[in-house]
């Protein structure tokens, strides 16, 4: 993994490394959930490979992004729902 970078997760600064997926960074930061399901259950990544859509978050204002398919970038703003 690469150099240290900082992303913001729901307004909180989280240190991670370049080359880390957003999903992995959120898991490492111990977020309570990635998204809420139709009936309001907390959900987190299942497949890790872009198929299940359980890891969707908002990244830099773009909603419904699969966090397992996106790499962290310095200054990136991530929001869970």
């Amino acid at each position, binding site marked *: 993994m690469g150099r240290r970078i900082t992303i913001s997760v729901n307004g909180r600064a989280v240190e991670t490394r370049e080359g880390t997926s957003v999903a992995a960074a959120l898991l490492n930061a111990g977020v309570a959930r990635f998204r809420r399901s139709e009936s309001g259950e907390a959900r987190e990544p299942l*497949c890790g490979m872009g198929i299940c859509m359980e890891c969707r978050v908002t990244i830099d204002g773009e909603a419904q992004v699969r966090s*397992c398919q996106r790499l962290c970038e310095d200054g990136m703003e991530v929001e869970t729902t």
Partner: protein
Amino acid sequence: MSGGSDVVVVGAGPAGLAAACQAAESGARVLVMDDNAAAGGQVWRGEQGEWQERFARSGAALETGRAVIDERVRERGRTVVLATGARELFLPFPGWTLPGVVGAGGLQALIKSGYDVAGKRVVVAGSGPLLYAVAALAREKGASVMLVAEQAPGAAVAGFVRGLWRHPEKLAQGVGLAMALGGVEAVRGCWVEEAMGRGRVEGVKMRCGRRVWEESCDVLAAGFGLTPNTELAEMLGCHVRAGAVETGDWQQTSVEGVYAAGEVTGIGGVEKSVVEGEIAGLAAAGRRAEAERLFGRRAQWRRFGEELGRAFALREEVKRLARGETVLCRCEDVTVGQLRDRAGWREAKLRTRCGMGACQGRVCGAITRTLFGWGPSKPRPPLYPTRFEDLFSD
């Protein structure tokens, strides 16, 4: 791309790369497309190996980061090779939607992309050789792997392992894995009945025959084998049977000008994918004589795939773990109770929105096929075309 290509390969995994190399080395203009950011597929992604190097020299073009979503792919070239691989099969059980419950391949992918599992207690359960690869990786990264539980009976797995001498490459891989696993407890004929926890997984209820016990954990990695990615093939009208694309001697599908190779034609491992890819690439470039020389090797690896399928066949008990209130379709939160009395996939989609959500049925479609025997909803063409024209044969 102006003028288009002679051969368009969808998927840059082992099968796709092998197909592209053989076709490009035969003089065809080849384009490979993959939805992932990096070539290599499930096993070689981000690595440099023999086939990647050969691919780099082959003259084939590569487009990454874009999914092929419909039949317009046929406009990109005269012949299409589908090498779309496989994904993990998930099965619902009570608690499987809790945070902390991930797929087995899912955990592997997350660790490879930076998920730090050091100090975490991990239970790996489900079916197939992938469980051991995941457990070894988690252990190497500092996790405490509490248990690896394979649902297939011990006798079936032992028989499979005894047969591995026929496939020395696999035997060597198995020995390597066994060493990486060290003292991790691995049990057979055992499965997870329920994941428990408030807000996230805290433990699992395991069953081995009549013995039932609880195991504490921070992460449960559960996967029940692999299932081919047949969606694109179905969209192009290719005949799909028992969840895999049907192919003939030259890896041709039921649709003229469309070939398929690798896990998409049936699960069999990386060697089967490579040899099928080579045959498809050669056949697509009109070099049938060369392709035919590989039939023996293909038969060997298909046999291995069949042995694998038999040894790790899913027992009926694991298909009945979910309760009526257990969610089956995670995108739309449709429960098993809402689904099990439906006539089939089409009715289920219309009445409950199962399969209509964000994953487009890629998780729940495979589950309903496994649990209820529902088939794909696309109409199927009845037969193979009787004649197959090759690109460069004159």
